[in-house]
């Protein structure tokens, strides 16, 4: 990411600091590849701010915790959609958040980089990266003293290559030139839809076998708003058993996905958060497409809109059931 945009973003953050409790952005994580959420309260904190290709976390997940207090937030396009959806669901008040946007050209997928730095058959880990640098269209990482360079597009997160909203859809300040939008044809789902139902079920059974039920997928989701009142932990009624069974694990995923129908903005945090790499984002992709086809609706674009499954209309404008024969 260009230095001048970074400089301008820091300036914008410093400008709003006196009016807010803190500004949510990104700082450095445990190694050069990984970022961490940064909660800026002082101009010194702002020095540690970094945006760009390594700024993966969707910080909108933290906003409801600050209800009643005014905060600032720096957003990528996808993050801004979560903010918009939270505003539309009255979980965040528009006047309590100052939104700073910048053009996002995509973020890295740390797992893809980890796989790419392997030698021969040997997979390596992000934790071995000594240095990481994004220069224009390439990413350079240094492992065991040796530097390797990859095209950025090869190690970019899958959600970014199909991103339709790379610029904040709602903002108070926008820094930089708008980035170009991409197309999403849901082509990634074809592979799974080509499977028979039995094959699909076996695929998920195999994937869910390594689920440890940590619920990082749920807690990283900015729109999983039940928080401490989730069906997964309810004892009365006892919806889910405590057995280590793929059935219960899959059951939760389906509940999660259906609760997000028409609300999920495709930020991909559920899958990124999964410590064992289960592609749980696929469920939401599938449901998102269905919500789009059925209701012509996408969440997180209009703070005044109400998601189709959160309202009731006698006649859904996109479902002409009176014409059904």
């Amino acid at each position, binding site marked *: 990411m260009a230095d001048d945009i970074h400089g301008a973003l820091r300036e914008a953050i410093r400008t709003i600091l006196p009016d807010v409790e803190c500004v949510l952005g990104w700082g450095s*994580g*445990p*190694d050069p590849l*990984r*970022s*961490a*959420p940064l*909660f800026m309260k002082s101009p010194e904190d702002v020095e540690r701010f970094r945006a760009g290709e390594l700024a993966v*976390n969707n910080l909108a*997940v*933290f906003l409801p915790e600050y209800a009643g207090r005014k905060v600032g937030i720096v957003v990528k396009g996808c993050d801004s959609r979560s903010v918009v959806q939270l505003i539309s669901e009255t979980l965040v008040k528009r006047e309590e958040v100052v939104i700073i946007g910048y053009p996002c050209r995509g973020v890295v997928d740390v*797992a893809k980089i*980890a*796989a790419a730095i392997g030698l021969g058959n*040997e*997979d*390596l*880990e*992000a*934790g*071995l*990266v000594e240095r990481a640098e994004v220069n224009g269209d390439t990413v350079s990482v240094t492992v*065991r003293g040796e530097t390797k360079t990859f095209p950025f597009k090869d190690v970019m997160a899958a959600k970014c290559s199909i991103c339709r909203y790379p610029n904040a859809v709602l903002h108070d300040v926008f820094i930089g030139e708008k980035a170009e939008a991409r197309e999403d044809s849901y082509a990634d789902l074809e592979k799974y839809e080509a499977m028979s139902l039995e094959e699909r079920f076996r695929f998920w059974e195999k*994937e869910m076998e*390594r689920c*440890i*039920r*940590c*619920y*990082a997928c*749920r*807690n*990283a989701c900015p729109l999983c708003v039940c*928080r*401490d009142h989730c069906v997964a*932990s309810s*004892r009365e009624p*006892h919806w889910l*058993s*405590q*057995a*280590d069974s793929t059935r219960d694990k899959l059951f939760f995923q389906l509940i999660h996905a259906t609760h997000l129908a028409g609300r999920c903005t495709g930020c991909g*945090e559920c899958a*990124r*958060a999964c*410590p*064992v*790499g*289960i*592609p749980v984002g696929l469920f939401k992709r599938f449901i998102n497409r269905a919500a789009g086809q059925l209701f012509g609706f996408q969440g997180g674009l209009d703070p005044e809109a109400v998601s189709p499954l959160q309202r009731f209309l006698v006649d859904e404008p996109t479902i002409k059931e009176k014409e059904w024969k």
Partner: protein
Amino acid sequence: MNAALKFLPHEHLKAWLEELAGTMRVLAPQKEGAAVVYRAFDPSREPELIRKPTESAKHILFPRSEALFAFHKKKAPFAPDSLNPDGSQAEKEEPATPAMELTPPEQPGPTVVFGMTGCDAGGVTTFDPVYGGRYQDPYYLQRREATVLIARACNEALSTCFCTWVGGDPANRRDADILATRLENGWLLEPLTERAERVLGSTLLGDAGEAEAREAEALHAKARAAIGEAPDLTGIEDALPALFDDKDFWWSESAACLACGACTYLCPTCHCFTITDEKAGLSGVRLRAWDTCMAALYTLEASGHNPRGQKAARLRNRVGHKFAYFLKNHQGRISCCGCGRCIKSCPSSVDIRRIVLNALKRAKGKEAANG
């Protein structure tokens, strides 16, 4: 030189594990998707012995969910009111108490884990005083006794590794049954406990000598150097309780926390559980499943009150238990083995090392301010 040192050429590794699989359950790390998890050894696949397993090995001794017993309630026979031949009411029989039939779970069979990391073995020995001390937990102890733990020495360190901060070592000789070091031509196997004998009788294993021992030592030294100098954590068990009511500190340290359970469920030393009866009709099973202090339900009281309603209080408990309370209950042992999974797999990169160092610094500052 230790005469009992064994050498296993790389080309014999799978044959040896296959041989063991004839009489034991053999578990080894295996790549699955983007993760490395423990699976039953599969001779058609290579075990993953370079990357650090994504999950710890604790579930082998302490399953994610286990049946403590199955139960079946037998209904009491129906005792209808009866009349004497003269039509008067007969004396009523006391209704029989319903009988409860309990079925214990199967006994664990002999097991060997090959290729766990040294820090994971350190996790096991923090479990031992909890489940085998004042309270003897038969479920854990039976598995512990039936299982041979073969830890592999680490040849390098990840950015999140810090075993040496908490008394560990990349070549852990304290906690496993066997220490395995990957040399250029094969594995050097060093028995550390009597349990090791159960798996070292194979003719596929040769004797190892001075040269192999020296080669291994050089690798161990290299890994130690890679982790770097460990900071002095002296006083941490007093620093954390001193900060117990320091809301600003815990709010700031927990700001990025999502309050999920990834850290605690991947942790080799976290050992909390919850118990539920999963029943249908008259039958069911009493399950013991992992629990996490990062979840609301963990401390939710029957009244509806939750003393740890905020994530700051939950994070404080996680760090406090590992670096203060456990030490006081278990002879100064830190209940953290420095594997770094809680940092590496945290979706928000919350770093327990930073919290511990910040706590030490802040407690010292407060002490100085109070004179």
